[in-house]
């Protein structure tokens, strides 16, 4: 119980604050960077305090080290896989005279033995230097990523929020009216939601809302009228998954003994639902957030492409077709880090929320 009280003092206000920030970005309100920094600092400080308070420092430390190793392994594996890919970065329709090609390869140290290249890459990585793009001359990989990441993160966060916002209430509602028409209707919607590829939904929505009703813009990324459709396309798929998950989990919790006791004691159905059932049945949702974020990252490419959003998804695909090795490595690393961090966060939150979890230290 003590855990619960402490979390209430720290967690919810912080969550609301972050939510406010996200909503503000949605409406194109410019937020001074010190707000972002202080929010981040406060969150980190709070997390750190909790970590110490519950004696989880060792666990968190261990997980952090593991995450670093994971990222390093992924970086090495990708580096090797790239060299198996047929075709080089400087093959082009108009083939270059061999002397010129040799000069270019020398410039990018592609004439060095593989092991030396790998060594250089890893050393650079440790120093935080991802190198220079082969395709976009003179631009640093970190610079390219920093410029394209914000739009992607924005889209991803909106989609994730929308997914929770729709998914959780719908799931609860379906469970509340188990086997009655709202349940069937919502679940039919949810199944349909996961059954349509987003590149089919997006053009239809554009046709209706941009050319039919004229409410939103068909592409680009410059304000609420631009944000809504992409968020909708990317978010509803995830929402459908969450709704199904929540429904199943609520149904399971309802069957649990303490709920039956509560019901026998005469607690009202909604008190039961919101106070006891929901709290417990949201844990699977939390656990699922890792794969959910992974799914949103994968799906974001399609949405970014169709809506011409200047995000990082494009680089992920184009860099491979350009054989822009440093950029492929850079995007892969960024996404792995996001995934690793999200998984770590989910695990930690899980541990905070549910003190029953045994931590394998």
């Amino acid at each position: 119980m003590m855990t619960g009280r402490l979390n209430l003092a720290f967690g919810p206000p912080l969550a609301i604050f972050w939510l406010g920030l996200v909503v503000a970005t949605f409406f194109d309100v410019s937020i001074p960077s010190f707000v972002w920094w202080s929010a981040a600092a406060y969150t980190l400080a709070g997390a750190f305090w909790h970590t110490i308070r519950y004696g989880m420092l060792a666990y968190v430390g261990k997980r952090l080290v593991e995450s670093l190793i994971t990222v390093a392994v992924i970086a090495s594996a990708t580096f090797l896989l790239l060299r198996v890919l047929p075709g080089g970065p400087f093959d082009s329709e108009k083939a270059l005279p061999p002397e010129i090609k040799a000069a270019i390869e020398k410039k990018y140290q592609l004439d060095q033995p593989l092991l030396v290249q790998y060594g250089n890459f890893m050393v650079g990585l440790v120093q935080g230097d991802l190198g220079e793009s082969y395709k976009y001359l003179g631009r640093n990989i970190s610079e390219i990523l920093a410029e394209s990441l914000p739009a992607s993160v924005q889209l991803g966060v909106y989609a994730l929020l929308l997914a929770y916002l729709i998914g959780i209430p719908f799931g609860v509602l379906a469970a509340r009216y188990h086997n009655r028409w709202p349940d069937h209707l919502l679940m039919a919607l949810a199944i349909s939601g996961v059954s349509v590829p987003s590149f089919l939904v997006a053009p239809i929505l554009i046709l209706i809302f941009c050319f039919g009703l004229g409410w939103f813009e068909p592409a680009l990324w410059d304000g609420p009228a631009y944000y809504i459709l992409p968020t909708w396309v990317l978010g509803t798929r995830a929402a459908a998954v969450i709704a199904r998950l929540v429904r199943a989990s609520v149904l399971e919790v309802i069957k649990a003994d303490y709920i039956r006791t509560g019901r026998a004691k005469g607690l009202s159905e909604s008190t039961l639902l919101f106070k006891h059932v929901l709290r417990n049945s949201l844990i699977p949702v939390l656990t699922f957030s890792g794969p959910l974020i992974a799914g949103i990252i994968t799906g974001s490419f399609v949405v970014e492409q169709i809506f011409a959003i200047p995000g990082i998804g494009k680089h992920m695909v184009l860099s491979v077709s350009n054989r822009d090795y440093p950029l492929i490595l850079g995007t892969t690393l960024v996404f792995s880090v996001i995934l690793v961090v999200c998984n770590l966060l989910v695990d930690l939150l899980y541990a905070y929320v549910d003190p029953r979890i045994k931590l394998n230290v």
Partner: protein
Amino acid sequence: MSNIRILVFALLTTFLSTGCTKKEGKADYGLPLSETLRINILQEPPSLDWSKSVDTTSSLIENNIMEGLVEYDLNDPELSLVPALATAWKPNSTASIWNITLRKGVKWTDGVDFTAQHVIDGWERLLNPATASQYAYFLFGVKNAQKYNEGKITDFSQVGIRADADGNLVVELEKPKGYFPYLLAHHATFPIRKDVVEKHKDRWTDPENIVTLGAYRLKIWDHDKAIVLERNEGYYGEKAKTKYVLAYMINEMSTAINLFDSGKLDFQSSLPSRELRQLRSRKEYREAGTLGIYYYGFNTRTPPFNDVRVRRAFAHAIDRKQITDMLAGGQIPLSGWVPVGMFGYEADRGLKFDPELANKLLEEAGFKDRSKFPKIKLGFNTNEDHQRVAENVQAQIRKNLGLDIELANEEWKVYLASLKSNPPSIYRLGWLADYPDPDNFMNLMSSASENNHTGWSSKTYDSYVDKAVSMTNKEERRKTYSEAQKFLTEMEVPAVPIYSMVSQILVSPRVEGLKENPLTRYIFKGVSLK
């Protein structure tokens, strides 16, 4: 709790009111709509460093912020050259030494006077091995240029370019080249400000550093989103009519067309081929023949295409008209090697569709029994249009020759790699002219060409090409190219041309003066908006 609710509600209403105010009469970046030409350049320009960039997106921007010594007259179907930074260019009697008179009084955007040294600096940079420019070979015709690029000489003064006492240029070529002036219109040979490049290094093309002298200057470069060009008020010639050019980078064509249709784009330079049937009927649609060819090459190293009769049989068995009808983008069937609209084009050149003759040739080659024909592959890079053409050719060969060929598509870079190491029996490629001279295309099949993947080479053909390059007599030159094409496309047939390329564009009715042209060289200074 209720306090929080009120707070949230208040916040929401403010956001809604600020967020939903529409920006009337404004394009993005706060530009006035009536003075902004909005175009789509499809992708982020890989570089605006004109000595290094190699792609069409970059050159589109470069050609508008910079200028070469000469410029094309885009209104002239023959694409004659008109003065730009140079006012005159004259060869000596053998066309091996060129005297280039420079325009006086031209200023860079930072106020510095343009001089001959800037041109020399540009060429030095292009050829310097440290620059590792992919277009360095462009100037290999200049005396000692190749040696300098390969590091065999390190003294640039030995390279055949120098300024004379009047501040004009003298260029000495290795051997005479009639098309040399065309090279001067290409961005690779543009002058450059060495001091700016050295000062800012890799950052010199950033808007705050770059120094140019074209009709526009680079105002904003918002990477992966858009580029904004602004009229250069100090331009030496007639000033640009439209103040701003806003160039988006949208590579999904259907998305770009959506934006065009909702009035957010004025110009789209690349259209989805499948939609052409419909788009062609629109009043915004325009098309123009492009100096480019689409062809299939044979791997002549191995059977069956080591036999010229089989190659000719295939050339006779493809009905090019059917392919261009299917593509429906105005492409013109091509059987000779020089594209429509270029000096040296001949409509009657090459082997025409003749299935009977094709079968006869195939039987002469010993394939009366079709089952004896080796298994062959037709390779192309993964792309919807190439696939449509390949599938059509596959069906035509089946119908006209009774042979089954296998299609093999590969991802672009994989395809390029296998063209070098192990080309398929038939391969697809295209070629776009860098400058409007047939040597561009004829040289493609010479023995020395890096782009000839057929394995076929011929001394006879090489001598035609070599001879024609330095000819100054136009008619004689035309005759030589005619003979070379006859040899290539009728006798030896290492490759089959399919069609002459076309570019399709959409231009909004509010745009005036945007000229479609065979080089797809879009210059915006003469564009005005209604």
